[in-house]
């Protein structure tokens, strides 16, 4: 394909299929109007000389972490975390900071956005002296303190000392102690995010975690992400689990919030793997049967699921996906719930994203609404303020797990004799968001329309479009995204009923993270509800590296890509794998009458796991059971087929 013929490709594909003309359902009317996915019809209104004019689709994935705790979270503070939300944001922006353990640390490169999600349960109040509000200023002492503070650091320190002494001597002015002037941690958190949020450059979301541990340890946590700014966020205090542990009450709280402020919220659940069968249970929280309204609420408020983080992955489990060789032994935390209460048979069926995506089809058949219509997110859930998900730069989940020679063999989590070892921690993950610009609103909107993918840490670029008219030539274009948006829907979208005789086609592309390993392969994971009402899944290898020497075998499996990792030096070479993979794939087993869900998994070549970097750096010998290599990966939000 010639580099200068992009415009021709565009002209030849101005015809837009029906599927692309409607936004996916679930993006309907809201209190603030329609949420519109990027409209393909707007991309190329007029053919013109410049192939670049008029490009309004997302051009670069914006990477961030939607799950970060700082010293303001009680459990993090107890664990020794001293970093504040400000430190966490500075670190995410690429600044060097000093970790709670005293070590200097910096990301390989800045992230594009962050959501600091301290637990809402511990947002107490603090007195605000500096605000200088008129009613407080009627008190001469407060006025004097305020003026001193305004003069500079020297006078400010003196004023503070006076405050401290007055408190000790019980001589604080009454106006200061009036609870109505008390500020909350929430207010302070908002102030910090406002200060660091720079539209166009770096997004700092206002956000918190609602931490429901049902039954004392079944993980039903949700990260609540705000689309809006201070003026709306400060009107209402976050929901805590002191009020309710029931996710349905959280949705109610979110609905009330949206009604009151005119803003918008979404919630991202995480760690289905630690929910002991409750994350995707097929009933309401209190035990009643699912209702259509319940399913609609869940779909509306929970458009994403965090499928990978430091406490393992919740994408797929080998006992559910028995033909998936890449689920075997991959970052599994599957022995119990958050307090390692052992699982009983039947729980794992309701914990993993892939199974839930399939179950959602069945529930939709029964209720007319799909509660598990979610896309993929990745976060760290770090509790030391450091969103360090890179294998060669892994700062652990708690301060106690920051780099030290023995951390691999220590207990990461311990309850009696039930233990999760340090080496089981996962150096993951981030979310890639196909947003049109780097702002709270644009990233949030992309999350809401599920145009996102999860990665285990590397920042690979992944495109995934579905439609009925993709042809091989679309994969040869120098700008596949133009064909993608013009002829189909992006990840997170819906395919309407297939035109007679047509099967879904998918334009799929991935480019490696320039800082990480080459790509091994791209897979399409398909789940569907068969004619007898049973759930099925199948994994298709659709594009792979080193194609001259690797062929798909009769059983559909592709030989492994190989392994260049030298564990002793924690190094590898990009002599295997490809820097980019792209293909157009047509479902060879399509039945137009059956509901189906498709998503993409991209695998890197094997690279050293953080445990290998630890062993090499600290010169320690680790147990042979500890995995020392990993195949980093990305999983995209699905595209649904709903006849």
């Amino acid at each position, binding site marked *: *394909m*010639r*580099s200068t*013929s*992009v415009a021709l490709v565009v002209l030849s594909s101005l015809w837009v299929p029906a599927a692309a003309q409607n936004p996916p359902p679930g993006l309907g009317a809201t209190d603030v109007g329609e949420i519109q996915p990027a409209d393909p019809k707007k991309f190329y209104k007029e053919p013109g000389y410049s192939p670049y004019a008029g490009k309004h689709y997302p051009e*670069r994935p914006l990477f961030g972490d939607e799950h970060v705790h700082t010293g*303001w979270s*009680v*459990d993090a*503070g*107890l*664990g020794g975390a001293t970093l504040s939300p*400000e430190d966490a944001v500075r670190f995410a922006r690429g600044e060097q900071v000093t970790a709670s353990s005293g070590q200097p640390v910096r990301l390989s490169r*800045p992230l594009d956005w962050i959501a600091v999600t301290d637990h809402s349960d*511990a947002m*107490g*109040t*603090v*007195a605000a*002296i500096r605000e200088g509000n008129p009613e407080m200023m009627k008190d001469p002492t407060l006025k004097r303190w305020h003026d001193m*503070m*305004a003069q*500079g*650091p020297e006078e*400010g*320190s003196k004023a*503070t000392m006076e*405050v*401290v002494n007055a408190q000790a001597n*019980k001589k*604080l002015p009454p106006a200061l*102690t009036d*609870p*109505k002037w*008390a500020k909350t941690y929430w207010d*302070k958190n908002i102030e910090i995010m406002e*200060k660091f949020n720079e539209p166009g450059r770096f997004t700092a979301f206002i956000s918190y975690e609602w931490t429901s*541990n049902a039954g*004392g340890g079944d993980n039903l946590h949700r990260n609540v992400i705000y689309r809006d700014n201070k003026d709306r966020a400060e*009107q*209402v*205090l976050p929901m805590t689990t002191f*009020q309710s542990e029931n996710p349905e009450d959280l949705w109610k*709280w979110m609905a*009330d919030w949206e009604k009151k402020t005119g803003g918008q919220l979404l919630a991202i659940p995480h760690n289905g793997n630690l929910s002991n069968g409750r994350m995707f249970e097929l009933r309401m929280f209190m035990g009643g049967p699912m209702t259509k309204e319940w399913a609609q609420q869940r779909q509306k408020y929970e458009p994403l699921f965090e499928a990978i983080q430091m406490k393992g992955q919740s994408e797929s489990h080998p006992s559910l996906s028995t033909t998936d060789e890449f689920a075997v032994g991959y970052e599994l935390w599957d022995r119990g719930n958050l*307090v390692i209460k052992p699982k009983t048979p039947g729980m794992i069926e309701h914990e993993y994203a892939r199974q839930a995506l399939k179950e959602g089809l069945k529930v939709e058949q029964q209720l007319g609404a799909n509660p598990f219509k979610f896309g993929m997110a990745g976060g760290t859930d770090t509790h030391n303020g450091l969103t360090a998900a890179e294998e060669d730069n892994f700062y652990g989940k708690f301060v106690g797990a920051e780099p030290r020679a023995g951390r691999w063999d220590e207990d990461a989590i311990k*309850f009696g004799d039930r233990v999760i070892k340090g080496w089981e921690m996962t150096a993951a993950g981030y979310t890639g968001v196909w947003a049109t610009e780097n702002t709270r609103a644009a990233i949030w909107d992309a999350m809401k329309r599920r145009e996102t993918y999860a990665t285990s840490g590397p920042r690979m*670029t992944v495109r995934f479009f579905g439609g009925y008219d993709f042809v091989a030539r679309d*994969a040869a*274009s*120098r*700008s*596949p995204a133009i064909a993608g948006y013009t002829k189909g829907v992006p990840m997170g979208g819906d395919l309407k009923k297939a035109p007679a005789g047509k099967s879904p086609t998918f334009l799929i592309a991935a*480019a*490696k993270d*320039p800082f990480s390993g080459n790509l091994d392969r791209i897979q399409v994971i398909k789940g569907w509800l068969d004619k007898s009402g049973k759930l099925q899944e199948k994994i298709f290898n659709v594009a792979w*590296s080193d194609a001259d020497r690797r062929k798909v075998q009769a059983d559909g499996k592709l030989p492994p890509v190989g392994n260049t990792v030298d564990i002793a030096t924690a190094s590898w070479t990009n002599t295997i794998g490809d*820097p*980019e993979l*792209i293909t157009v794939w047509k479902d060879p087993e399509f039945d137009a009458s059956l509901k189906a869900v498709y998503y993409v998994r991209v695998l890197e070549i094997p690279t050293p796991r953080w445990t290998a970097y630890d062993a090499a750096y600290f010169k320690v010998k680790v147990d042979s059971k500890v995995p020392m290599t990993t195949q980093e990966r990305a999983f995209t939000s699905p595209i649904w087929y709903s006849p």
Partner: protein
Amino acid sequence: MRRLLREPLLHFFVLGAALFAVYGWLNRGAPGSPNEIFVSRGQVQSLQAQFERVWQRPATPEERQKLVDTWVREEVFYREGLAMGIDRDDPVVRRRIGQKFEFLIDSATPPAPGDAELQAWLDAHAANYQVEPVFSFHQVYFNPERRGATLGRDVDAARRSLASGKPASGDPTLLPETMQAAPLSEVQQVFGDDFAAALGGLPAAGWQGPVQSGFGLHLVRLTESVPGRKAALEQVRAQVERDLLRARAQQASDDIYRRLRANYRVRVEPA
């Protein structure tokens, strides 16, 4: 440790600690004996206000009663706990109180430094506020996996073609064909360090290269290359202000610690 976190008693401590300062002030000079729990009007208003800020409506009379009852229950346990001294060996309570104390100190930092102060800070820390180099360029990509043995030849042919004003064949890629006014860090994000470093050395005239990246080879036409330079205050005001305030907060905290520390005599028992 995590079990401890789920300990209901602990939750009471944390809540108690959160209300500690406010409570202490509120009950200053309140009537009654040590065994009297006085729920002041202000306290009830505060509970109601907190309820309203979460639930976005006023509490009903029943809810209000429940808020008060819960508060009294917490207060009884809290006082009993304090009387037993179990706050003293609790790291959560200690940290929390200490953290709130630091907030108090932080609130003494003046919020808005003037231009002169900001400029002085910028001059003193100029290295932290470099404006990044900026590049605009077009690139044609050659994938070594696809080209194999003909890679070098193909690139040469393409360069000749481009040099004579004709188009050239590149390979399909997700990499952008062009970046406009992209800061160095963004070029690094997309193309990797090697490519970004090479850009700085290219003349902004015609097609150059091939330039190597982790993806393969690229022919590059640089149309704009602005070197990095010292920032003017207007370009980095927000950042300078953030950093200056942070430094001052740290200074204030250290300063107050030093003054308070002077009031104590510390003895560490030899091991």
